[in-house]
């Protein structure tokens, strides 16, 4: 290769913040023509944001753009829309499929770029009345499939295809674009079987040989080593390593991915408060889109804080959502010796289970109601608290005074920043909204609590307070807590044990004192 020629892609000092929250800092790397670059990092390390910047996604522009330069073949570019990126020769295969279910592979590959035949009517009514040239479509799609090197049936309808073939259809669609120079693959092997993944890796190599550069994002580190020329490791919005793939190994990459400066002193380990099992989950499956749970068996001990960690999309969120009846589930869940019927949220709540959802605006809060209502509503609905009874319980009135008192108590205790207890929940910041979610759950005084992603999208100060409140609630009221989080570090801070979910089931349970390398290895162990 000619070294003086400008590399295909060069990223210089890319920085990006979301409303003051710095997510990318000084990203620098270059990618040569026909090279394969593996991009790895934990969730939230900034990989997706970086790719969104490169691809000109709307969300970047809407949140104030980015700083730094992207050079494509030596020329500075700044894409305003994905269409501009496409025109410049960048193709992207997203994690979610973007295919028309009732169309054949051929139709999808050439969607809106179909070869057409001119007809008389199109002179009058415009070129949308050109008829499609089916033969040319078949040939063009066939070429793209061949270029990919994996055989799929072009005349097969997408909805009849196995998942792997859908993925290949997406890749073929990008390959069918003549101008394609750089292909971004965002976790393409996540949905593939081992055999299919192998075929995909082969096709990545053959694309590279044809001069197409590939950015390959995956959690399967072995694949990176097998197929990439270069590995870029990101952590907390920075590039921490940029090495040739042949000079490294899985252990090293894992270490770079999770290896923060470990501060053991901040945490206090304790013996499990009790060996008694309070909840036992047997053979649980949950059909939560993007977070499928397969065959989870897990015992929760009385009074402990159990952390559930794992990479995004591996099913950790599905566990509480399935047990609490928000998504369809099957299996057996027993709580304090009694079986909890699945798919019936009310029965879970009646059994004194509570759930702080990760979807705080959608599931957690009544956004247009006052804080008082938000705090008191579940307790009022489920446990008849904060009600004054008249005529022997025939008529129930809200006890406004008690509601106000309890809300004020939690506002003080959790340091919720608001103008008054009558402010609307919508007007609070994310961190304070999360505290309201906790307050309303605490007001129900549950015996068992699921907390899902309690610190997602909130600032450091609020994070510490939320974690502290959970810990206190556990210690003082003896409530068993199961906390689901993508951040290993915070799980290690407050949990007694940590279960790691990988590929939809439990990959292992370790004490919180385990090293982050150990946990990290479990996280990628069964990634499917």
């Amino acid at each position, binding site marked *: 290769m000619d070294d003086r020629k400008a590399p295909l892609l060069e990223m210089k000092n890319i920085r990006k913040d979301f409303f003051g929250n710095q997510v990318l800092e000084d990203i620098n790397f270059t990618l040569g023509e026909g090279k394969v670059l593996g991009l790895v990092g934990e969730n939230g390390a900034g990989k997706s944001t970086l790719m969104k910047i490169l691809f000109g996604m709307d969300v970047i522009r809407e949140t104030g753009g980015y700083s730094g330069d992207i050079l494509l073949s030596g020329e500075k570019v700044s894409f305003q829309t*994905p*269409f501009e990126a496409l025109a410049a020769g960048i193709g992207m295969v997203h994690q979610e499929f*973007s*295919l*028309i*279910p*009732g*169309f054949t592979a051929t*139709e999808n590959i050439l*969607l*809106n*770029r*179909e070869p*057409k035949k001119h007809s008389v009517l199109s002179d009058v009514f415009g*070129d*949308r*009345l*050109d*008829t*499609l040239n089916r033969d040319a479509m078949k040939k063009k799609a066939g070429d793209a499939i061949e270029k990919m090197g994996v055989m799929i049936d072009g005349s097969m309808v997408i909805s009849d295809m196995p998942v792997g073939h859908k993925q290949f259809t997406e890749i073929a669609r990008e390959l069918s674009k003549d101008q394609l120079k750089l292909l971004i693959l965002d976790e393409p092997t996540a949905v593939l079987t081992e055999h299919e993944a192998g075929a995909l890796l082969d096709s990545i190599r053959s694309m590279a040989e044809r001069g197409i550069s590939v950015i390959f994002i995956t959690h399967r580190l072995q694949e990176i080593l097998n197929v990439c020329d270069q590995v870029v490791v990101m952590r907390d919005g920075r590039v921490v390593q940029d090495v040739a793939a042949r000079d490294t190994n899985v252990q090293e990459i894992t270490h770079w991915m999770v290896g923060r400066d470990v501060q053991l002193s901040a945490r206090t380990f304790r013996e499990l408060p009790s060996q008694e099992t309070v909840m036992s989950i047997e*053979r649980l*499956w*949950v*059909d939560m889109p993007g977070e*499928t749970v*397969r*065959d989870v068996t897990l015992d929760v001990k009385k009074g402990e804080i159990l952390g559930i960690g794992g990479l995004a999309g591996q099913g950790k969120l599905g566990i509480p959502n399935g047990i609490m009846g928000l998504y*369809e*589930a*099957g299996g057996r869940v027993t709580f304090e010796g009694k079986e909890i019927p699945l798919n019936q949220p009310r029965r879970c709540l009646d059994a004194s289970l509570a759930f702080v959802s990760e979807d705080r605006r959608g599931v957690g809060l009544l956004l247009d109601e006052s804080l008082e209502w938000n705090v008191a509503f579940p307790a009022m609905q489920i446990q008849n608290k904060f009600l004054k009874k008249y005529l022997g319980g025939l008529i129930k009135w809200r006890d406004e005074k008690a509601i106000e008192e309890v809300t004020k108590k939690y506002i003080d205790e959790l340091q919720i920043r608001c103008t008054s207890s009558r402010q609307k929940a919508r007007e609070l910041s994310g961190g304070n909204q999360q505290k309201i979610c906790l307050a309303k759950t605490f007001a129900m005084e549950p015996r068992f609590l699921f907390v899902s992603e309690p610190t997602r999208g909130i600032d450091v100060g609020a994070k510490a307070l939320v974690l502290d409140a959970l810990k206190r609630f556990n210690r003082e009221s003896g409530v068993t807590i199961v906390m689901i989080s993508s951040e290993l570090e915070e799980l290690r801070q407050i949990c007694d044990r940590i279960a790691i979910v990988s590929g939809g089931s439990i990959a292992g349970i370790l004490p919180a004192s385990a090293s982050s390398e150990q946990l990290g290895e479990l996280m990628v162990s069964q990634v499917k």
Partner: protein
Amino acid sequence: MNKKKFSLGEFLRGNSVPIMFILICAFCIPISGFSPTYLLNEIITRLGRNAFLILSLLIPIMAGMGLNFGMTLGAMAGEIALILVSDWQIWGIPGVVLAMIISIPFSVALGLLCGKILNMAKGREMVTSYIISYFINGVYQLVVLYMMGPIIPIAHSSIKLPRGYGIRNTVSLLNMRQCLDDLLAIRVSGVKIPVLTLIIIALMCLAIVWFRKTKLGQDMRAVGQDMDVARDAGIQVERTRIISIVISTVLAGFGMIIYLQNMGNLSTYSSHSQIGMFCIAALLVGGASVDKASIGNVFLGVILFHLMFIVAPSAGAKITGDSMIGEYFRVFVSYGVITVALVMYETKKRRAKQSLGRQLEEDQRKGEKA
């Protein structure tokens, strides 16, 4: 073997509505006592009368806009054109053709309006278009009752209300009655076949088949199945949806003119009011669903739905002694069929959603055995 049985069950479930109607007809025909010639005559007349109108429903369904009452707007445009043409005393085939041409601007304008509104109510097109049709009915009445006469010149007193403005309840189209049907008509053993009308319908079918092969047709199918994916691929989703509604209203306008020339008179204030309902019901009887309809569904639907209307009153009268039962049945069945189709559509969607969960459970069980 097992697989074949399964597909038979699927077939029955998928076509339960047409099968039900075939059974009802099979039950009623012998009781009604009509001769086969009479029935065939009636069916062919009604096929010619209604098929074009129902065909106008296909394109919005293809674009994912569901069973669309937007066609009622086209029907009103067709009626306004017919009133004008009959006032100008242009009769016969020229009258029909002129009415079709005049209806186009009205249909297009109403279609644009309807399409714009439906773009704001994605996923609720059916009920929204139903309410729009009531709203536009009010505008139509304003035009026909008050503006025709003082603002839009109406010369002939035979169609004007005695008070000097507004249009009478019925406008006679006697001079263009069945002019399309009678031209080139042939009789085969007592059954009159309106060849020209059938040719027009056949051409329309060919046009729809051709349209599906065009770029626009392909875009509409893509938009109909997944708007977001289509948008990501650079297809103008909103524009495509509006075009599909405009095509539908224009075709419905033509369809209404064909329908009324067959009937021979125009009920100014009520012809259009139920036409959408009956067309949609007929299409559903033919085995269509909210998101899928074919030309075959149109013809099967017209035949079964109208066969039932012909035989049911007479069969009902023979059984109960009350001839009103037929009209009651007609309305009852229309609403009933639409309700059933909507419920079936929802259950199908829910079943598809649940199947993933079932799959998980099954995989797990298999894993247990292994």
